[in-house]
């Protein structure tokens, strides 16, 4: 997203924050319109610019139908939200007839076909919701579908090949420079939120929410594309109790937006030009300079991501929603465990809740449990590799996840080993400061070396970079 889009979104957040009466449908309309607006085009199937956001809305409504308890299903309280969503879809579809204000893509589906398709999708959702007996089955089906689409989207070559084939089948082969990659704006975070609500429903922890609340939570536009990943119960608490913004809120918003814009559009963009790339691994004259480019990347990715988060938190607060913090000075942490407790915190919390903890519990509950150290290794490694794969299904993301998984395991074992063995001087103020400083430096460099896998395209290039960084080549 460029600065123009961000400023427009801030303007929309400001607008959304003005309303306390009718807040839920207004925020819903804004978020639904924004996801259509932000969805990038696709050269292979231009109408995907319409159908992908529509699918986002449809799958969200379906997930609500599958998780809503009977007491929250009433037509009276849910019909307005349904009408708002329908009105937004209609508005987007009609926009192509107004060439002077073409906010959304001009490549929209034919109205008749679109109308039937939309009606069909919602009829299907209604039927699924009507037969409540199969909820568990449909939930599982939906979870599998969400994961399958995730794998498809995160394997760029697969998605690109499929789109190219579809394009050729339609008699319109793609040009060499066409955008073949399939981008589903916000899908990762959509998937996290849907899985969170479905799993919580299955474990009986999901609160009852109406359609407007649920869809608002899933597609809330400030956090739709880059997080943070809020929890439903926390989100609706804010949504249900609109408060006028206090002076402190306004100052907080100002600080978040100013810092976020500065981090993203000044610091991150400046560092982007000197960050490590495949080509620069070869072109850099010495390992020392490659370290400089790696440091640039490390800070660029931090400022970029935390800048976006600051902006999202600021926009959320404008609308009375206190989105959770995602970063807490991660590069100043003295060990890797603390780093992961302060880097993309909502993501790690999500994986802890829905993968790490269940996995650990199941391993402990096994008839013949593995040794503790191997349970820790397995759970750390698999969690971090999954987090790696969330960024993209490539060997480099597997290596990046594995690097951190092993790092966390080693730190865990080291901490265990050192318990009660720390020398007396380490308890002094100076000793403690030295150990803390050394820990910060070591952790930062461990994380920075991990970015080699994250930033480069293949294990081969990453290996060359590591050799150069370590002065071996």
């Amino acid at each position, binding site marked *: 997203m460029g600065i123009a889009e961000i400023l427009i979104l801030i303007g929309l957040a400001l607008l959304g924050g003005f309303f306390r009466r009718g807040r839920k449908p207004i925020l819903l309309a804004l978020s639904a319109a924004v996801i259509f607006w932000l969805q990038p085009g696709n050269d292979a199937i231009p109408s995907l610019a319409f159908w992908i956001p529509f699918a986002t809305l449809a799958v969200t409504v379906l997930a609500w139908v599958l998780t809503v308890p009977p007491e929250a299903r009433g037509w009276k309280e849910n019909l307005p939200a349904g009408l708002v969503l329908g009105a937004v879809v209609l508005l987007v579809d009609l926009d192509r007839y107004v060439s002077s204000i073409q906010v959304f893509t001009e490549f929209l589906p034919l109205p008749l076909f679109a109308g039937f398709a939309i009606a069909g999708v919602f009829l299907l959702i209604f039927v699924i919701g009507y037969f409540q007996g199969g909820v568990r089955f449909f939930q599982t089906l939906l979870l599998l579908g969400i994961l399958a689409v995730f794998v498809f989207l995160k394997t760029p070559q697969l998605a690109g090949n499929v789109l190219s084939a579809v394009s050729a089948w339609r008699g319109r082969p793609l040009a060499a420079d066409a955008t073949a990659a399939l981008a589903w704006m916000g899908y990762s975070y959509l998937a996290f939120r849907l899985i969170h609500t479905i799993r919580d429903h299955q474990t009986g922890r999901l609160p009852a929410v109406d359609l407007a609340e649920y869809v608002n939570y899933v597609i809330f536009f400030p956090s739709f594309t880059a997080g943070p990943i809020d929890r439903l119960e926390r989100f609706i608490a804010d949504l249900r109790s609109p408060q006028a913004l206090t*002076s*402190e809120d*306004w*100052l*907080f918003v*100002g600080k978040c937006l100013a810092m976020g814009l500065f981090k993203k559009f000044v610091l991150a*963009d*400046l*560092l*982007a*030009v*000197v960050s490590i*790339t495949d*080509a*620069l691994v070869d*072109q*850099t*004259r*010495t390992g020392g*300079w*490659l370290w*400089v*480019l790696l440091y*640039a990347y490390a800070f660029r990715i931090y400022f970029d991501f935390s800048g976006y988060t600051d902006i999202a938190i600021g926009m959320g607060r404008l609308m009375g929603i206190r989105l959770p913090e995602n970063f807490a000075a991660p590069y100043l942490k003295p060990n890797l465990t603390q780093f992961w407790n302060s880097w993309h915190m909502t993501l790690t919390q999500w994986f802890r809740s829905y993968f790490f903890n269940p996995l650990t519990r199941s391993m402990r509950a096994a008839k013949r449990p593995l040794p503790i150290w191997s349970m820790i290794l397995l759970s750390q490694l698999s969690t971090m590799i999954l987090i790696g794969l969330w960024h993209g299904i490539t060997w480099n993301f597997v290596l990046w996840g594995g690097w951190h998984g092993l790092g966390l395991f080693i730190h865990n074992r080291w901490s265990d080993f050192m318990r009660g063995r720390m020398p007396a001087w380490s308890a002094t103020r100076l000793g403690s400061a030295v150990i803390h400083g050394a820990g910060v430096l070591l952790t930062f460099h461990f994380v920075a070396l991990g970015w080699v896998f994250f930033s480069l395209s293949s294990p081969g290039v990453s290996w060359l970079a590591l050799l150069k960084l370590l002065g071996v080549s």
Partner: protein
Amino acid sequence: MSAGVNPWRVLVKAILLFSAINVIFAASNPAVGRITLYNRLLPGRLRFPYEQQPMFYDIGYNAPVSEDFDAMFGAHVISAPKPADEYRVILIGDSSTWGTSVQAGDTLAEQINRLDLRTCDGRRVRAYNLGYPLAFLIRDLLVLEKAMDYQPDLALWLITLSTFVPQTAEKEFLAPHAGRYVHLTETYDLSFPHLDGKLHPPSFWERTIIGQRKRLKDIFLVQAYGLLWAATGIDNHEGFSFDGAPPNPDVSSDLHFLEFLPEDRLTPYDLLMLESLSGGYGIVEDIPLVLVNEPIFVASGANSDVRYNGFYPRWAYDGFRQVIVEQASDHGYRFLDYWNSIPPDGFADRNIHRNPAGERRFAELLAPEILELSCP
């Protein structure tokens, strides 16, 4: 957060402060371009920063700072203090001088430096590449004028036919330098009718931080790119495109030179020649200025009887040479004509851009002339 702080007052104060800073900036017009990391923390560049298609997140090595001569020169190695034993030669010219098809270390200036020439009084000859892509005559004059701040001992002005043709892109380049342009024309009594009334000093609004944001952004970016320059020694990805293959000897049969045809005989007045040449000599005063007609690719294949290369049909280029030779002779300008001195395999394309071997050959041709001029 402290209680009792009124956010609206904070906002109003911030707006007032920002407005005041803008007004002060516009009124004082600070030379931000002079603030540079080059030649201090970072090595100076061997040629001016230039990028054909500047990119942000993809690989790039440069940000164009042509709006700010201070930043251009500040990033250049010529801004480093001049050693006492240096005989400083500056090369002014277009893309062929800048070295579009070669890396920074292989340009004509660096090839001259590799020859390790010494003047008769023992000074080391050091050539500086002050070329800039695209042939703009007035830009050459402005660069030459600015270069005089850096104590050159000899100026080589590499010219070709395109240098002397008024171009539409000229105005875009010159717009930020309207003040310098006016100073140039007034000081040296020059007149360029095609630009009359088209260049205006920036308005107050254009001088504010908001108005200058692109220039300021590029100045910051070029400092950041200095890290890449220091790390790689590469300053432009265009230099990678040369694959070493000799250019195709065939050329088209098109008789056009820009919008001109053979019946449009090019006169010195069409070519802005009289003004510019006298301007150049006015600028350098006592320092020797040599006009160098740069080598062009001379095709030998199909249609080579009609055109020399992709740039020039024979009628236009022959006419230009006749005019420039006459001008140099009439006014006593020192003129070196190397138009066909580099064989086709010394070029990277079918125009005027040399490959590293061609640069080397050209440097060897210029070396005796430089040494002769350095020893009066």
